[in-house]
């Protein structure tokens, strides 16, 4: 593979100015989202949710409960849409697939030695293939940050290519783990690299490292997606994940998408939010919009 010209051309990656990108993200955070826009935004965010459980103590029971929540987030109210996907470890793919059968909710599985990715490539590929054969519609892989930070861009690219091949028909989301990349220049570089290697989605974080999906990091990635689309015509999706807990944060993310990528990306096909506790805050805010009052958290089921 190394005989081929590199897919990723470092010289074409533009620099990112830290002060400028943070100012722009902060400026968009001041958009006032009220009334109908808020209601519509909350429902949209719900439909884009990758409802996630990625813990050592995950069990079949926990996953099945979460799947029920994914299908009908607000019991008794079918106007609240089902979430986009359930995101689990490979061990629970078959269970989730079974629990979600016919619901339209997809099954996403983390793979490739999540979250650190510090396992040999054959193990990563095997991990991926097993998840896919168990029924995963989407694979969330992690990049080798060690290799990236030591400048081995071709190695990172080749790994993504190999995992993409192992995915077959399943969609591939590439997790950059931006908290470990540290600089916006690195985030941009990794985004361009992952898209050049064929990522269907690029994703900020595993949720195991902070900072995770900060607004400026999301904006850098959205701008990379926009430039990739304008240059190639291919629409790559975006998934911020990690630390997104409130409706306000979710609406802010939608503002970033709306004003950077426009209408085409305001769909679960191209934008996802990875979160474990966001769903209930969306429901609470939704109830507040219709009743004018905040309700006790015990009115909303945890799972």
């Amino acid at each position, binding site marked *: 593979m190394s005989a081929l010209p590199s897919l990723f051309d470092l010289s074409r990656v533009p620099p990112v*100015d830290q002060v*400028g990108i943070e100012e722009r993200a902060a400026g968009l955070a001041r958009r006032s989202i009220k009334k109908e*826009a808020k209601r519509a935004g909350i429902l949209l965010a719900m439909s884009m949710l990758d409802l996630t459980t990625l813990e050592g103590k995950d069990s079949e029971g926990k996953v099945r409960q979460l799947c029920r929540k994914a299908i009908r987030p607000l019991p008794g109210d079918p106007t609240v849409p089902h979430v986009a996907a359930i995101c689990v470890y490979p061990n629970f793919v078959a269970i989730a697939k079974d629990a979600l059968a016919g619901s339209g909710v997809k099954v996403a599985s983390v793979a490739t030695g999540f979250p650190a990715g510090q396992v040999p490539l054959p193990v990563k590929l095997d991990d991926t293939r097993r998840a896919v054969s168990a029924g995963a519609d989407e694979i969330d892989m992690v990049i080798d940050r060690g290799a990236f930070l030591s400048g081995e861009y071709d190695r990172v690219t080749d790994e993504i290519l190999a995992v993409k091949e192992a995915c077959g028909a399943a969609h591939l989301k590439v997790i950059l783990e931006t908290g470990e990349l540290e600089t916006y220049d690195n985030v941009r570089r990794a985004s361009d690299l992952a898209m050049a290697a064929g990522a269907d989605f690029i994703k900020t974080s595993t949720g195991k490292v902070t900072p995770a999906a900060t607004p400026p990091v999301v904006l850098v990635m959205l701008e990379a997606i926009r430039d990739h689309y304008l240059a190639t015509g291919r629409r790559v999706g975006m998934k911020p994940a990690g630390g997104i807990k409130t409706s306000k944060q979710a609406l802010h993310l939608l503002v970033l998408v709306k004003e950077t990528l*426009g*209408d085409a990306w305001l769909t679960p096909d191209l934008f996802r939010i990875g979160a474990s506790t966001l769903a209930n805050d969306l429901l609470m805010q939704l109830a507040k919009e219709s009743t004018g009052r905040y309700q006790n958290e015990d009115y909303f089921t945890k799972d």
Partner: protein
Amino acid sequence: MATEIDERAERKTATSRSEAERPRIEFGTAWEYSPAPEAADIVSIEKRETLFINGRFVPARSGRVFETINPATEEVLSEVAEGGAADIDAAVRAAEEAHRKRWSKLKPAERGKYLYRIARLMQEKSRELAVLETINGGKPIKESRDVDVPLAIAHFFYHAGWADKLEYAFPRHRVSSIGVCGQIIPWNFPLLMAAWKIAPALAAGNTVVLKPAETTPLTSLALARICQEADLPPGVVNIVPGAGETGAQLVNHPRVRKVAFTGSTEVGKLIQRAIAGTGKRLSLELGGKAANIVFEDAAIDQAVEGIVNGIYFNQGHVCCAGSRLLVQESVAERVIQKLKLRIETLRVGDPMDKNTDVGAINSRMQLDKIRELVACGVEEGALLHQSSCALPAKGFFFPPTFFSEVAQSHRIAREEIFGPVLAVMTFRTPDEAVEKANNIPYGLSAGVWTDKGSKIFQITSKMRAGVVWANTFNKFDPASPFGGYKESGFGREGGMHGLRAYVELS
């Protein structure tokens, strides 16, 4: 001639054809923001506003009034007393007496206390001030709330601190005040310009007669009320609204010791001529046609944000606006493509809506001037790009606009348009960029965009402009001096350099 036009038309269709095949980003209606209007009823505007002379609100001696409107709706807000020669005379005499008997005698620390008090009262009323500024001037509430009002307050706080420390600002000098300052301010930042003028003058022990612009007198009068509430001694601050004639009477009054003017270069020249030989001191902050220079190694997306901020902030009614874009040829196409996309997301409309990015043009007269110069740009052969946004039916609005294929010799590249209109030109080498940037009679501000630190220093040191921003634009701070080279004026406002204009040193 005919072939030339044909060629141009052909080229234009060629571009549009290839554009149709290109991937496009649509900013449509998939998820729309609901209206988010700021409440206007928190301010009450008097049906008749008067002059503020010697601590009291009084009608004009002549009884003359003029109407002030909301440029976003064209509705009349108030009838404002128009100061004439007798009113200016009364105001200047009141200011002179206040200077002689009270203000210059006051302990400097006590002067500082008054300024702190004004600043705190402004803070308490910041929401009202922001709403009033937007209603009367047309700028987006987002800007008056987040920029104009906080900066105006910061200027009072900053200068309050200087009041009792003047000898540290000018070591080895005896520092004294000048006397009555006649100050004339423009309509683009009414409250902020009033603060820039009044705060340093008062801190240094002077008294002032200030004439706000004809179209935007309301926040200056609100500031007069704050001075009254702060128990500022009568006559220390006098506010006399009016038009050019009122301003001329103020400039020519024999007891005015110093004139400070912010406005057009044309009027600035008239003022300089008028006071020549009178011994009056003068500072002028005039027009500009700033170059924003984007190098190929710049962070392009952030540069585009800076370009947008530079020209569309406050509808381009900014004397230091980055109204000329000089972009390196190797990245020109990319920058123009991104700029075209970006102006589509600017939200133009009701200035009171918290999500509005570009508000109303300040007056019909200004709108006509912008239209005329844009028509001229088209006629001269530059390529027009405009946001496709819908404009409100009433009020004065103009869409975010830029021209590519502009030549240095075009009028739109030479004259100050003072509207949301940018002229884009290209360059090949750093030397060419500097030469083009400086090749203009103005010299107020400039911007340089590059990721290379050494280039920033190399280029900025060659710019003949009072303020040069690197990798940012339109950043203001009371501690940072602001002012022009060449026909953009002289004297500085802000910082220690700004204080110099309001003290007598011996």
